[in-house]
């Protein structure tokens, strides 16, 4: 079945931006899940923060709410508090969620709010034309750090594991089918899902070659409920694992009220 998920919006991402891969994967994931009868199109709410990622809400033909910078997570918690039947998928960026809004991630994970958070992690502020973010590498030279950043990056997956998120995964924009497959799993997860999408910014932080050489997919049958293993895996740096690190079931916040 062909599900129409297009909108009239004119796409304003840079030509060749890896966000197009995310958009395609997401539309494919939704289309397949709707066709398979696993979710209802009318019930989908796409949330977004502010940044290049946020425009995705305009490009997907579903209900959507473009929130404020850093605040998409509480906005979506509100959506679920209002109507727990809705499928709440929130898009965010590394600046949006790991800088301005990180408090909300910790608490949404802690309460296991039924939100799927997809973070476009390009390790740079793109829309504001290239500044350091919490995931930028030490030494990153941007317009606000011309001598190079002196801060170590955070590992968002570690933060999420420590906060109690019940689904933790990572994908790379270079592998469309795998990204689609993990997105589908995240959407079907009941509870707070954190999906980090490694997304090279071709204008301000082109890391395509760096990641292409290092990423690898976790094995299908790798452990899913082993916190220690997951913590080890998400910290690997020489080679960068992709896939689901952690997946457990816990009571969902909005359904207990």
């Amino acid at each position, binding site marked *: 079945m062909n599900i129409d998920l297009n*909108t*009239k*919006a004119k796409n304003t991402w840079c030509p060749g931006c890896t966000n197009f891969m995310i958009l395609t994967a997401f539309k494919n994931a939704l289309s397949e899940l709707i066709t398979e009868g696993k979710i209802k199109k*009318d*019930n*989908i*709410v796409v*949330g977004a923060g*502010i940044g290049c990622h946020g*425009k995705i*809400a*305009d490009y997907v*033909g*579903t*209900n*959507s*709410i*473009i*929130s*404020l910078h850093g*605040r998409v997570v*509480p*906005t*979506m*918690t*509100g*959506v*679920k*508090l*209002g*109507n727990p*039947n*809705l499928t709440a998928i929130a898009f965010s960026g590394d600046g949006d969620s790991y800088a301005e809004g990180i*408090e*909300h991630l*910790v*608490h949404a994970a802690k309460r296991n709010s039924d939100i799927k958070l997809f973070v476009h992690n390009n390790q740079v502020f793109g829309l504001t034309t290239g500044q350091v973010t919490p995931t930028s590498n030490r030494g990153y030279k941007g317009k606000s750090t011309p001598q190079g950043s002196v801060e170590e990056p955070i590992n968002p997956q570690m933060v999420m594991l420590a906060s109690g998120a019940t689904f933790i995964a990572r994908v790379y924009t270079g592998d469309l089918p795998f990204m689609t497959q993990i997105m589908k799993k995240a959407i079907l997860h009941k509870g707070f899902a954190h999906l980090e999408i490694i997304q090279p910014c071709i204008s301000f932080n082109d890391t395509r070659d760096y990641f292409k050489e290092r990423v690898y997919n976790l094995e299908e049958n790798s452990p899913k409920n082993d916190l220690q293993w997951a913590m080890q895996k998400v910290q690997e740096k020489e080679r960068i694992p992709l896939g689901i690190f952690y997946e457990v079931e816990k009571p969902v916040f909005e359904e207990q*009220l």
Partner: protein
Amino acid sequence: MNKNQEKIYTILIGGQAGDGAREAGVNLARLFCKLGYYVFASMEYPSLIRGGHNFCRVSFSKEKIFSDYRELDAIIALNQETADLHKNELKKTGVIFFDNNINSIIGKSGQLISLPITSYTKELSAPPLARTAVALGAFCRYYDLPLLKLNEVFTDIFGSKAQINIDLAQKGFDYLQDKNFGQTKFPKTDKKIKRQIIDGNAATGEGMVAAGMKNYIAYPMTPATSVLHHLAKQAPKYGLKVTQAESEVAVINMVLGSAYSGVRTATGTSGGGFALMTEALSMAGIAEIPTVVVESQRPGPSTGVPTRTAQGDLQFVRQILGEFPRIVLAPGDQQEAYEIGGKAMNLAWQYQLPVMVALDKHLSESLANADFSKIKIKPEKIKTSKCGKNYQRYAFGADGVSPLCFPGTKDTIVKVNSYEHSEDGLITESAEMTQKMFDKRFAKLKNLEKEINSFKGVRIYGDKKSKNVVVFWGSTKGAVLEAIKYVKKPVKAVQVLAIEPLPIKSLLDAYKGAKKIIDIELNHTGQLAQVIAEKTGLKIKNKILKYDTFAFEPIELAKKIDKIL
């Protein structure tokens, strides 16, 4: 003062935090209410958990009263400090009830009534908090009030745990009986009248519930916290969800998400929390999301004096980032708090914009009589349309209000946006569309201004023909309505209840022919006078401003008004 005016009596009960003075004061207020009096009870306490000086002051009368008074008929002192701090406020005939374990209370003979409060409490192995029951029992004996009614209060409040309070009250009652004290009596009332008492925060919450609120989301902040407490307690009864979030920023964004999903939602906070909410309230403006925020003011700036009262946030709550229509309403008493709680929720959903309800600590936490049966609140109809394929969230129309559909509706896409947007909710940077959207949002004001007049955004009391006018807003209403009973010249009292939009015509009508206008506010700069000057060009020269963190006292205020008139 009018000769026919009923006398007003005032009792103060005080102790250190943790002594239960506030709870006992509330029970005293409930007792007078049960006996058919009108009451007003205010609470004073410092920002700490144990120690400090807490008191509750209860005034009551056979006629409706709007404020408590400073002059006292009795003090119930649970500690030395209460007696020391307040004995100069006693009337000539006033008495002090005190625990006989305090041995250094100095007073005139016949003024001091020593009670074995702590020893009786120990004797009955009662929890220390229950000891105020001894004092209340003795109080009933002294003033010839039926102990049965006090016991009813205990049963209403404590249920199956009431017995220990009843026993302690009996001991206190008998103690004075045996001592053969002379009895003083209050004027008799018509006991058939049934009234309730409620504080401003609970009343506001009840009003919002009556208007269909199903989600209340908040972060604790004095003096708005008891809205959260009251609603959390009542939640199962009302089918209400009450959520405490990680910060005011989280709270307000959750409120927006919840309202977008189609559920009537509100929050409550004080000035500091409101400051954190303003960015999202601006989003409520552009995204046209119905939002209600209760802002209970306390003295600022910043952390200020957290447990006291002020009206310093009026300009702040009306000045949220960006240009868009918003509503600011300020109820003046508990009855109006209920009315405005409901009104705020309905207006937010009828006009799809943020509504701020400005309370202050004095209104939020003081108890007074209210009769909700006199005010009809229901969830008013919202504008909706045929949802479906052609739905556009921001469709243009004559009155600026686009029909609402919600996510989860068949074949309907609801797109909302903090960016400027076209009718379909998609981002726009078109100059023409941006301007059209501004005009659309501001088109709501036409009907809104009519609406504000229809529920009387300006209310007039006192001598309506008088050329001496006092103007005020919020909880100051209480002290003003009491004060004008004592002011030598007749006074017309004008309450401004709708701050945004300001009912300009009603206000100018109220001023017509005025010789002297006095602005009365609990702030340093006369913010209501500023708003009136901004909107009407009328400058009020005479101002009675107070910013010492306490509410106006009626007699004191009357003297200040006299001086100007």
